[in-house]
C-alpha cells in the first residue's frame, strides 16, 4: 500500500488519500463494475493514463478542496479525483480517459481516508477484489504518452523547453476551471 504523497493537503485533519497499484490485472471489468455499483468506495484509474504521482496528488488535492467548498461537480469524492486529472470538466470524457476500463492491465486505486486516518476497510476490499500483482505506483509500467500528448495538446515546442511531460499535463489540469 502506498500513500498518495499528499503534502498539498489543506489542514492537518483533512482526509488523506491512499493508493494501491496493480499490474497484470485480469479482472479489470469486475473492479470497475464494483466501483460503479458502489461496492468499492474508491476511484479506479487506468495506470497508463496517469502521467505521474504529482498529477495524482494534485487531482486529489483539488478534489478535496472542491468538496470542502461544496463546489464538486462530479458524483462523489472519487469521481472528483478522476475529473481532477482531466483538462476539461466533461465527466464522461474524464472517465473514459483516466478511469479503469475492461481491458486495463494496470489499475491505480485511490481512496480517501476517513477523518481519523482509517481506510474504511478499503484495503481489505481491494485485496480481495483485484486479481493482479500489487506493485508500487512508480513500477506501474509504461504510460500512454501519445494519447496523453494528444488529450492535453502538448507539442514539441513546449517539450523542447526542457520541462517534463508531467509538468505540461499539470499546467493543463491547473487551468481547467479558468480555461
Amino acid at each position, binding site marked *: 500500500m502506498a500513500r498518495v504523497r499528499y503534502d498539498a493537503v489543506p489542514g492537518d485533519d483533512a482526509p488523506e488519500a491512499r493508493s494501491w497499484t496493480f499490474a497484470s490485472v485480469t479482472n479489470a471489468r469486475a473492479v470497475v463494475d464494483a466501483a460503479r455499483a458502489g461496492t468499492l468506495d474508491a476511484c479506479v484509474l487506468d495506470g497508463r493514463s496517469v502521467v505521474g504521482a504529482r498529477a495524482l496528488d494534485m487531482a486529489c488535492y483539488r478534489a478535496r478542496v472542491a468538496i470542502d467548498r461544496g463546489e464538486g461537480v462530479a458524483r462523489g469524492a472519487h469521481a472528483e479525483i478522476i475529473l481532477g486529472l482531466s483538462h476539461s470538466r466533461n465527466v464522461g470524457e474524464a472517465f473514459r480517459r483516466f478511469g479503469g476500463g475492461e481491458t486495463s492491465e494496470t489499475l491505480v486505486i485511490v481512496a480517501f481516508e476517513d477523518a481519523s486516518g482509517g481506510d474504511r476497510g478499503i484495503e481489505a476490499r481491494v485485496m480481495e477484489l483485484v486479481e493482479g500483482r500489487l506493485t508500487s505506483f512508480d513500477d506501474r509500467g509504461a504510460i500512454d504518452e501519445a494519447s496523453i500528448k494528444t488529450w492535453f495538446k502538448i507539442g514539441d515546442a513546449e517539450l*523542447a523547453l526542457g520541462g517534463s511531460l508531467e509538468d505540461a499535463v*499539470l499546467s493543463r489540469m491547473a487551468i481547467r476551471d479558468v480555461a
Partner: protein
Amino acid sequence: MTTETCAPTPALLALLRACDGSIEPRSQGAEARVYDVQLSGVECVAKQRFAKTYRLRELDERLTRSRLSAEARTMVRARKLGVLAPHVVHVDAKESCVYMERIRGCALKEALRSGETTREDLRRFGEEIGVAVAKLHDGGIIHGDLTTSNLMVRDEDGRVVVIDFGLSYPSKLPEDKGVDLYVLERAITAAHPSQTVLFDDILAAYKKTSQMWCSTLNRFAEVRARGRKRSMVG
C-alpha cells in the same frame, strides 16, 4: 492597509503552514503578493491577487478573477509557443491565487546591475529575450509589462525566464506589439543606461524570429517617435 487584508487566504495559509513556510510574502506588489510554498513536494510560488479596495467591491472581484485566469492561461500558452515561462501548477480561482514553479535565480535587473555581465552575456540575453517576445507576439500574446524586473535569469543554466503575465492580453495588432517593445526599450534605457546595446540585440533577434517583424518594427518606430515628441513637449 489593515493586517486583515494582508493575511493569506485559508487554502494558501494551510499550504504555507503544511510546508513550514514563512507566511510573509517574498514580494508585495500593488496588486499581488508572492509567497514561497511547496505543492506536492515541489517548490512553488503562490501569486495572490488582492482587491484594490478603492474600487467597487463586486466589480473588483470580477476584474481580479478575470485577470487571474488570463494570467494563468497566458503562461500555459506561452510555454506552448516555446517561450520559457514558469510552469503553472495550480490555480485557485476562489482565492485569486496562481501557483507556479519557483524560478531559482535573480531578476535580469539585478544581473545587469551586478557589474558581472560581459558583452557575451548581454548578447545571449538579447537573443533569448528577442526570440521570446517574437514568439509571444506571433502567437498573439502581448506581455504588457516587459521590464527587467519581469525577466528572470535562472541559476541552473543562466537562461532568461519571462514572468509576470498579469498585464498580458491577446492581440495581433502591430500597434500593441510596437508598444510592448517600446515599454521594454524605455525600461532598459531608464534602468540600465549604459547597457542599451541589449535592446539592439533584442530587436535583431526579434527581426530574425518574427514572421511579422516588418509591420511590427515599422509601428514600433512610430510609437517611439510619438513617445519622443511627447517627452519633448513634456
